[in-house]
């Protein structure tokens, strides 16, 4: 496996008794007895009338920290080393999570297009960290760089709100560009309290996209396959070759976020596509 870069801490101490030496060592290392292993090198001798007295000597070694700690940092630092990137890695651990933050000059490479590389690194780090963990010990791993995810979250929320307003105004649904499950969730949750708006996902990974649409009840007409659709009948026929019908079925079957299925397609696909290019 990867080599461990941090040397285990080890010191030797002598004192009048084994216990005293041990205590002094723990104090110096600033750890408790549970964190260390120790060997008594010399039990010492009391001597007689001050003659032949010898200090006790112990060698105390700090046990290596839980493997999870090093595995995430170790993995990332060896990858960055190999890439020739000088990146500082900060790790924050809790019982069931590992949060990594990266600092350095080459963050563009680490983040990648729309965070692709960052997501890939995060996924791989998670695999490494959870390699031997059972379900109970599973740790959620996040890898971030100088607030990239926070900024991305903010801009996705803004995007979602802006598009929702637009959709509500003109009644046409909007299909976003493909996003990761995490980013799709941001869109869904940003808009979940919008009374007139519904969101769902279409397509397969990694091309799965969120669709923002007007909730069905606010669309008076619309019944799928309704022969004489009321007002909007001219719109109820999806544009040819539009994958939305299939995509919609899929979305419906795989836990779309909308409670009501959308029955018809009110927008022309090509227009939606063009808008997506913005």
């Amino acid at each position, binding site marked *: *496996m*990867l080599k461990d870069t941090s040397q285990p801490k080890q010191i030797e101490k002598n004192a009048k008794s084994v216990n005293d030496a041990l205590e002094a060592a723990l104090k110096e290392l600033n750890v408790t007895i549970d964190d260390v292993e120790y060997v008594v090198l010399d039990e010492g001798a009391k001597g007689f009338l001050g003659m032949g007295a010898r200090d006790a000597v112990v060698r105390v070694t700090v046990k290596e920290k839980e493997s999870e700690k090093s595995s995430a940092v170790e*993995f990332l630092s*060896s*990858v960055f080393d*190999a*890439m*020739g990137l000088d990146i500082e890695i900060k790790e924050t651990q809790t019982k069931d999570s590992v949060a990594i933050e990266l600092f350095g000059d080459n963050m563009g*490479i*680490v983040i*990648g297009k729309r965070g*692709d*590389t960052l*997501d*890939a*690194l995060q*996924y*791989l780090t998670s*695999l*490494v960290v959870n*390699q031997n963990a059972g379900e109970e010990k599973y740790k959620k791993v996040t890898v971030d760089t100088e607030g990239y995810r926070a900024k991305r979250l903010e801009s996705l929320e803004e995007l979602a709100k802006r598009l929702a307003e637009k959709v509500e105004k003109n009644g046409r649904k909007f299909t976003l560009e493909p996003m990761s499950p995490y980013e799709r969730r941001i869109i869904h949750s940003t808009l979940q309290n919008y009374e007139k708006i519904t969101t769902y996902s279409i397509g397969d*990974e*990694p091309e799965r996209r969120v669709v923002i649409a007007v909730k069905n009840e606010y669309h008076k007409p619309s019944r799928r396959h309704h022969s004489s659709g009321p007002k909007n009948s001219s719109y109820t026929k999806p544009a040819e070759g539009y994958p939305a019908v299939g995509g919609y079925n899929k979305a419906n079957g795989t836990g779309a976020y909308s409670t009501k299925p959308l029955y018809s397609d009110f927008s022309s696909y090509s227009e939606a596509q063009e808008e997506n290019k913005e």
Partner: protein
Amino acid sequence: MSFMKEVLEIIAKSLVEFPDQVSVTEIDNGESSLTLELRVADSDMGKVIGKQGRIAKAIRAVVKAAASRENKRVTVDIVQD
């Protein structure tokens, strides 16, 4: 050894059960294009491919990021002999 090869090796070795059976062969296709052939123990294939190739995709993304520094195009092939 090119550093892209090294990146791929490090990632693969960190994921598999038998790191000593990981090998990467570098094939220079000229015109700054490179193919890396990754071989792992048969029982480790799943660990570098993943469900629906998710792990393979993540590996490729990182190796490609490494390659982009040198303006190289790199293809990662997972090979089973």
